[in-house]
């Protein structure tokens, strides 16, 4: 069995550590690029959302490099993501690829037995003892947590750093170094080193950079290619960003959902404007906007793929949050047709708006 996975931000690094540690055979497809997108768009339904297309592009690249099994998570949920695996299995079959799909759906939908059966399918491939398998899972989880932490620190410090660009460079060299390391224990060690290094970047905390919350649909906020590297762009412009939705958050959310204790803070914050669960991460998006206003951030950017149903609902709620809580919000819609020029223009104009607004508010008080 040779496993491949679709990309989602930095998840591939943790997955690599997991598979290396379990001693499994795997293929990580090349990072998302225009090629993956055009390949995926060619074989996907025209109207489906962007993540679907990119994922199909990843599968094809993975299978072409020798993978015979795709491992992915599902949701059986009320947004289109729930139908992803079924449709994708069909598409891959129609294309003539002999590939097996292992879909890790949430416990609530398929039951504990079925989930274990699916996990066992992967687990049996590993020759390691049960105890060391559990150790591998914890190692990978730890790696994911570290990567998310490093990324969050880099995004936060970008507005304060004394030498502009240092955080961004450190982040990219961290990813490169971890990816080229095939010893899982050493890879985690590297991550630990980078975590300390990124915290000691020379920074001037008397600066007052713009602080922006990045929120919206989970795939498009986490996967940098799909949002045209918005976090990198913002780092270049010296803006501090905060993003609550991370792979670690998702994992915790999935696990805690089974006992209804998931993301209390976000859901509580969303109650005022959207007290019902409507699928996807719409409530989380609303909650994030409310929290951003509470934490006195300068603004928020919502990103979602064209046709994303839950986020369209939150987009129409956001203006009332913007008005009530005095938080400027910019909504960006991405799909394979997104032009970079117009996208950048909107981001730049939004930053200008925030800066001028702040000057104005400061001079009045």
């Amino acid at each position, binding site marked *: 069995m040779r496993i491949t996975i679709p990309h989602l931000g930095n998840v591939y690094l943790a997955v690599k550590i997991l598979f290396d540690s379990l001693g499994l055979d795997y293929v990580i497809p090349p990072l998302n690029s225009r*090629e993956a997108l055009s390949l995926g768009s060619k074989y996907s339904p025209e109207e489906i959302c962007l993540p679907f297309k990119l994922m199909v592009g990843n599968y094809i690249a993975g299978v072409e490099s020798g993978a015979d099994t795709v491992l992915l998570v599902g949701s059986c949920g009320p947004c289109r993501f729930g139908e992803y695996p079924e449709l994708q299995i069909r598409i891959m079959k129609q294309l003539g690829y002999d590939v097996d799909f292992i879909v890790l759906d949430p416990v609530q939908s398929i039951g504990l037995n079925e989930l274990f059966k699916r996990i066992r399918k992967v687990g049996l491939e590993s020759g390691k003892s049960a105890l060391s398998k559990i150790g591998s899972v914890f190692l990978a989880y730890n790696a994911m947590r570290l990567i998310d932490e490093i990324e969050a620190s880099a995004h936060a410090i970008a507005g304060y750093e004394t030498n502009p660009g240092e955080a961004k460079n450190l982040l990219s060299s961290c990813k490169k170094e971890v990816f080229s390391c095939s010893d899982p224990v050493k890879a985690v060690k590297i991550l630990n080193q980078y975590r300390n290094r990124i915290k000691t970047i020379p920074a001037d905390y008397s600066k007052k950079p713009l602080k922006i919350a990045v929120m919206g649909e989970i795939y498009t906020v986490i996967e940098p290619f799909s949002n045209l590297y918005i976090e990198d762009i913002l780092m270049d412009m010296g803006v501090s960003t905060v993003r609550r939705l991370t792979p670690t958050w998702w994992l915790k959310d999935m696990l805690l959902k089974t006992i209804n204790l998931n993301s209390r803070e976000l859901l509580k914050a969303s109650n005022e404007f959207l007290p019902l669960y409507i699928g996807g991460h719409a409530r989380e998006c609303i909650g994030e906007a409310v929290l951003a206003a509470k934490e006195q951030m300068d603004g928020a950017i919502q990103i979602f793929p064209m046709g994303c149903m839950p986020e369209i609902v939150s987009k129409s709620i956001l203006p009332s949050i913007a008005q009530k809580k005095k938080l400027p919000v910019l909504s960006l819609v991405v799909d394979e047709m997104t032009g970079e020029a117009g996208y950048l223009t909107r981001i730049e104009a939004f930053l200008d708006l925030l800066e*001028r607004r702040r000057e104005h508010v400061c001079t009045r008080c």
Partner: protein
Amino acid sequence: MYALGVDVGSVSTNIVLLDNSGNVVEKLYIRTKGRPMEAVRSGLAVLKDKYDDRQIQSVGVTGSGRMITSIQIGADIVKNEITAHAVAAIQADPEVKTVIEIGGQDSKIIIIRDGVVTDFAMNTVCAAGTGSFLDRQAERLEIPIEEFGDHALKAAVPVRIAGRCAVFAESDMIHKQQLGYATCDIIGGLCEALVRNYLSNVAKGKELLPKVLFQGGVAANKGIHRAFENELQLPVHVPPHYDVMGAIGAAILAREKLEREKKKTMFKGFSVSDAEFKSRSFICGGCPNRCEVVCVLENQKAIGYFGDRCGKYNNRSFSPPAAYV
């Protein structure tokens, strides 16, 4: 001393010179025709004989071609067109609360309160109602674009045209022509359809308060202007330099920036109009990102790069982010 402002748009390239008190002393309107560097070059060639390099105190560029132009002429500030238009509108009328801007390829709405931009939006999915679409329809009906608006005003009973999408609007117009409706009524209907489309797409959910300013190339179209007034039930003002507001905004921003930072201009001088500019693009194979990098050549010498995400080429000879601040 003059402030130079350049707005390199999809359809037109506008160049303005502002004097010390902010009056427009020169105003050039050049068709871009997909060759931004050539348009800027020919524009500067016109100014070259009248002005001296030393008279130029600051340079600001905006518009979709702003990156390439900033490399070409040496700009002090590179600003997006939304901010540039807002700044020019506030200067033209400090009481402005709403700016409707319709250019060659995009339409925008900017909401201003107390002289500060509080919200904006740009068309996302469709270019119906923008300058190039109107251009095309005028051409098809064999009416000079300058007279297009007058025809709309003559409409007795504007015909209802489906304005949701440029392609459908055109086929609907052809359909109405085939049925024998008067051309004036069709043009009048088109203007109304485009305004409806604008208000329900770009301006959706925005609070449009007076005073409303209408700028951009399409503001010359009296038919659209009247349709806006009818639909909004508000007076809509067209500022005197409505067609070069972006360039004016860029000039103002550049002057403000240099005065604040007490710096000298980075303007390369009017002699750039004699130089030969070319650009070439290539795909960098350094990593899986596969960025499309553009290289600008002045007399066969590379003077700048952009389009690479990692900054590998960007940092080589010059750094655009410096002008971004």
